[in-house]
């Protein structure tokens, strides 16, 4: 345990990267997820097919391969990304695929009568989506989003493949240095857990706030 305390600094810096990557990718993942969900529900045949393909491929292949291709594969096409940028891009694309399914379900769960009521008041399809459907869908989407976010927190560890020293990699470096594994693993498990508790807490608060009307 002493070793952990001595190197707490180093681990915290890794945790900070983990957090930073998670938050940035979540932000963009949310946007992608929303756009894709709407595309799948309202788009024309071509757009729907495209969105389906995106979700199927991204969900179906390991994220480590996706990161790998973005960072090491794109340079063949003249696109040379910074490690952190590559991490943001690949994780955003990945999280977007999962969230799009969550959002799609949530949007479908809003009663069809709500759309009809809004349309009959003269709102356009887009106004209906933004003012009526999405606010109600948000409430339904929060719990599964919790699953996705907390999952993603830990998937960030895979970005060590593009040489970003996030939390898990920090622990592995320390293990290699001191030839002792268990305390470091337990320490980072605690850190991940604390971060996930913070996320859960924030989501619970949002959920409560959105549920107030019901």
């Amino acid at each position, binding site marked *: 345990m002493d070793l952990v305390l001595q190197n707490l600094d180093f681990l915290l810096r890794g945790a900070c990267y983990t957090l930073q990557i998670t938050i940035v990718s979540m932000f963009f993942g949310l946007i992608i997820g929303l756009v894709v969900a709407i595309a799948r529900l309202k788009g024309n045949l071509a757009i729907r097919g495209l969105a389906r393909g995106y979700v199927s491929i991204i969900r179906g292949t390991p994220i480590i391969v996706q990161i790998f291709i973005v960072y090491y594969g794109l340079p063949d096409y003249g696109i040379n990304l910074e490690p952190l940028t590559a991490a943001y891009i690949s994780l955003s694309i990945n999280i977007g695929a999962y969230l799009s399914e969550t959002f799609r379900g949530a949007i479908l769960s809003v009663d069809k009568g709500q759309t009809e009521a809004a349309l009959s008041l*003269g709102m356009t399809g887009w106004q209906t989506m933004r003012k009526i459907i999405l606010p109600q869908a948000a409430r339904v989407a929060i719990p599964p989003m919790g699953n996705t976010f907390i999952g993603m927190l830990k998937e960030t560890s895979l970005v060590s493949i593009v040489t970003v020293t996030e939390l898990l990699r920090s622990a592995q470096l320390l293990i290699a240095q001191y030839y002792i594994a268990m305390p470091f693993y337990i320490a980072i498990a605690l850190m991940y857990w604390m971060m996930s508790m913070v996320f859960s807490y924030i989501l619970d608060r949002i959920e409560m706030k959105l549920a107030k009307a019901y």
Partner: protein
Amino acid sequence: MIELRHLSKQFDELTVLHDIDLRIRSNEIVVLLGPSGSGKSTLLRCINLLEDPSSGSMQVGDALWVHTMSAAEKKKAVREIRKRTGMVFQSFNLFPHLTAIENVMIAPMTVKQIAKSQAYEIAESLLAKVGLADKKDVHPSRLSGGQKQRVAIAQSLAMEPQIMLFDEPTSALDPELTGEVLSVMKQLALDGMTMIVVTHEMKFAKNVANHIIFMSDGVIQEEAPPETFFAQPKTERARKFLHQLTHI
């Protein structure tokens, strides 16, 4: 005011409305009667273009919808017609995430781009009109069915429609709550609003309607003033319908 010509509606193979012709003048109150499945709801939904009629044409005020229009023309016609019509549904379709007054304000603000403060004033006076001034900051989940339905009426009125469509607005309500809603509707009728009402409240039909339209199997079977219709229905189907309503 409103005129349907040769309006038909099919769902896949099933023809639900057959070649409907209908004229309603300003300030008229029309009650639509008919057995379950006769196409009453579908007719109202076609007038509001929530269903896309399969053929025919429709004029509401100076807005015209014709089945042969191009997609772009139709889109514009839909918007124009919806501006002129308000609809209250059988189920309570208020927006649950908004308070009563927000429910009334939202359409004027988003569709007509009216400023918030002005929309608030309009909404306040409409809620007062339906007797719910004191419930304005309450969410729909805290309202009784009758109160919900009255907010829904205020919500429609906020768009200043020229004609109101009611699809069994009281059928999910207790008899006592039904009274509240019907009296608001009566008041609207007295104010000169043009209305088409689908209802099973025969007293309302007798006392308030100018015309009764009786439908069955997607066809308008009879059209008559209420006195005539209830006293001497012309068709066998209408006689049977009235008989079932009055005998349990």
